């Protein structure tokens, strides 16, 4: 038997023109603006860093309580609280430069102009490699409609596309739709260069002693391991129906907590893997997943992570 020389499998992937040392990213809103986790994990080893949603002007966000734990997950209704674009550019961009990994900025909005203005300014910032349009945040009243209506989504993405001449244009899809492939198609047709999914599922939790919702906002977005099977299905659906044909990379997320979850998302068609809620348990989880992925690939005799992306052997649908 010839002995094979061991080569560490390549973990590098690309999201459009962005080259990532590995597929592991942070999910928007769960990792702050820049180096908040710097004492807990080596941020320079991430594939990419995705910031909290940055709006044109600072936002206070919702009243407390903003979170509640649920079974194997949590609800949040933060209300897009953030420091605003000016403070972000001034205070956080220098730190992000220091980190040296590709940066993706999450951009929310309430009107098309909000998205266009913020995206245009971020497009001029060389360290910002990608703009992730948050068309799906279910917490702010009108936020839902861009992400759930394919016509409005197409118009919005087309408008933002005109100003994102340099950065990758990533559209973060809402799972709160009947068929996520429809909105995915609208985003890609309008010029999205990558898709990320899923955002949180609109959900509720009730304080039975006071007969009131647990969250001041009433409803919140469900995240964590509880949503993983649905997120995985949606990733696979978007991959097979839209992304594969158009050669558009997917950033998969929703309950990723162990390397096994990461492998599932890769097999289902994700190129990037974003870790969200699990960062609250341990900010080092992305790097632990990375180790696990490396071992998995070696065990499976794969030399390159790209060999397994979308390689799921899906059963043929029966009629």
């Amino acid at each position: 038997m010839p002995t094979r020389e061991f080569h560490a499998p390549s973990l590098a992937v690309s999201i459009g023109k962005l080259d990532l040392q590995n597929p592991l990213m942070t999910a928007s809103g769960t990792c702050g603006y820049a180096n908040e986790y710097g004492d807990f994990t080596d941020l320079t080893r991430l594939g990419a860093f995705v910031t909290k949603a940055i709006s044109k002007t600072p936002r206070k966000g919702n009243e407390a309580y903003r979170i509640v734990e649920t079974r194997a997950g949590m609800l949040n209704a933060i209300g897009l609280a953030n420091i605003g674009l000016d403070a972000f550019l001034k205070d956080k961009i220098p730190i992000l430069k220091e980190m040296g990994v590709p940066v993706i900025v999450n951009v929310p909005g309430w009107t098309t102009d909000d998205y266009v203005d913020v995206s245009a300014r971020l497009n001029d910032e060389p360290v910002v490699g990608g703009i992730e349009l948050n068309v799906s945040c279910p917490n702010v009243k009108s936020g839902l409609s861009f992400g759930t209506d394919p016509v409005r989504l197409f118009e919005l993405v087309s408008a933002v596309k005109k100003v994102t001449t340099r950065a990758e244009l990533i559209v973060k899809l809402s799972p709160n739709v009947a068929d996520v492939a429809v909105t995915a198609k609208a985003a890609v047709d309008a010029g999205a260069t990558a898709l990320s999914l899923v955002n949180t599922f609109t959900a509720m939790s009730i304080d039975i002693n006071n007969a009131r919702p647990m969250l001041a906002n009433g409803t919140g977005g469900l995240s964590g391991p509880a949503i993983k099977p649905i997120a995985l299905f949606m990733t696979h659906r978007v991959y097979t129906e839209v992304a594969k044909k158009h050669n558009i990379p997917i950033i998969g997320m929703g309950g990723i907590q162990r390397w096994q979850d990461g492998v599932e998302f890769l097999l289902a068609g994700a190129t990037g893997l974003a870790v969200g809620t699990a960062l609250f348990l341990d900010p080092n989880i992305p790097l632990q997943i990375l180790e696990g992925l490396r071992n998995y690939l070696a065990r499976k005799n794969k030399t390159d992570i790209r060999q397994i992306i979308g390689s799921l052997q899906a059963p043929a649908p029966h009629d």
Partner: protein
Amino acid sequence: MPGRTRQPAGGATSSEPRIRPTPTSPRGRYVATVKENIRLCTDHYRLVLSLPRFPRSTPGQFVEIDCRDPRFAPSADHDPGPRAFDWPPPESFKGDSPVALPRPCPSDPDFNAPLAYLRRPFSLADHRIWPDGYTELDIIHRVVGRGTLLLAQMLPGQTVSLIGPLGTGFTIPQGIELACLVGGGVGIPPMLYMAKGLQQSWIKGGVGFIGAQREDLLPVTIIGPPNAPEPSRAGDPLLNVAEFKEYGYPAVITTDDGSLGMRGYVTEALSAFLEERQVQQGRLMNTIVYCCGPTAMMKATARVAAVFGVPCQVSLEQPMACGMGTCQSCVIKFRPRDLGEGAEWKYKLTCTEGPVFDSRDLVW
């Protein structure tokens, strides 16, 4: 070390952004070993955790403990593997088990529900550092749900994952000579650590005010007056709290039902004390109040402090998902006192900009 005047968030002041953990990081992820797990009184436990090293902390700072099943605590190979549960846990906790608790059991329809998911925040009740870096942390907690129940069942030798020290602790303004340490219920633990911190500062005068609903809910060691055969415990002004006495500070004990010490709220005892001191000395300018407890009690304490014109620092509790300043879930309304009532408030994060705030800056 406790007792410094200024404590920036996380401790370090370097201008370089910290983007990876280093041996000098002021906070981090640690695996601690349970050294002791002691039942103090009904529902309350002291968990003594040992670590080969841990950054310095300030009283008022807290740690976030992973309260999922400790048998699946992170191991060196970092492959968490599948998490599984069985309930009840193997014969684990020796001594009295928590009482009066809706305890999951096989007849409970929710019996195979997962345990706590997010980490749970706990104030440091003490922090002991040996010259070689070996560290012991004390956590005193009350069993109120799944996470704290799990902690109560931990055995010496088991490990827990913790993150910390988090938040900003109490500060000691220049010129202060007397500190009142007001602790209610699960707000008592940080006051015990603060007593130690004060003792290591220039402040020599301290008084503890310890309140609970009932005698059996006081997680401290009560010692009676010397030479008294069988003291009448209720209302006895000479009762003392060993944890304060160690540092030379007397303590006033109150219980809502009068089962030990003074009957009534701890704020009434504080008010009476400040009143007396004011009459004696004619002024209270060098006094400060440190407080932790239920929100209503902290508000009442802040009001008492305001009446007597003394500063008051409170340690707040808010639901926290991360404890590290990323999720924006733990907000409180903040309005710097010098801006006046009409000024607009803004949100501050309890986990990183707190949990300790000057009560005069809070909108509550």
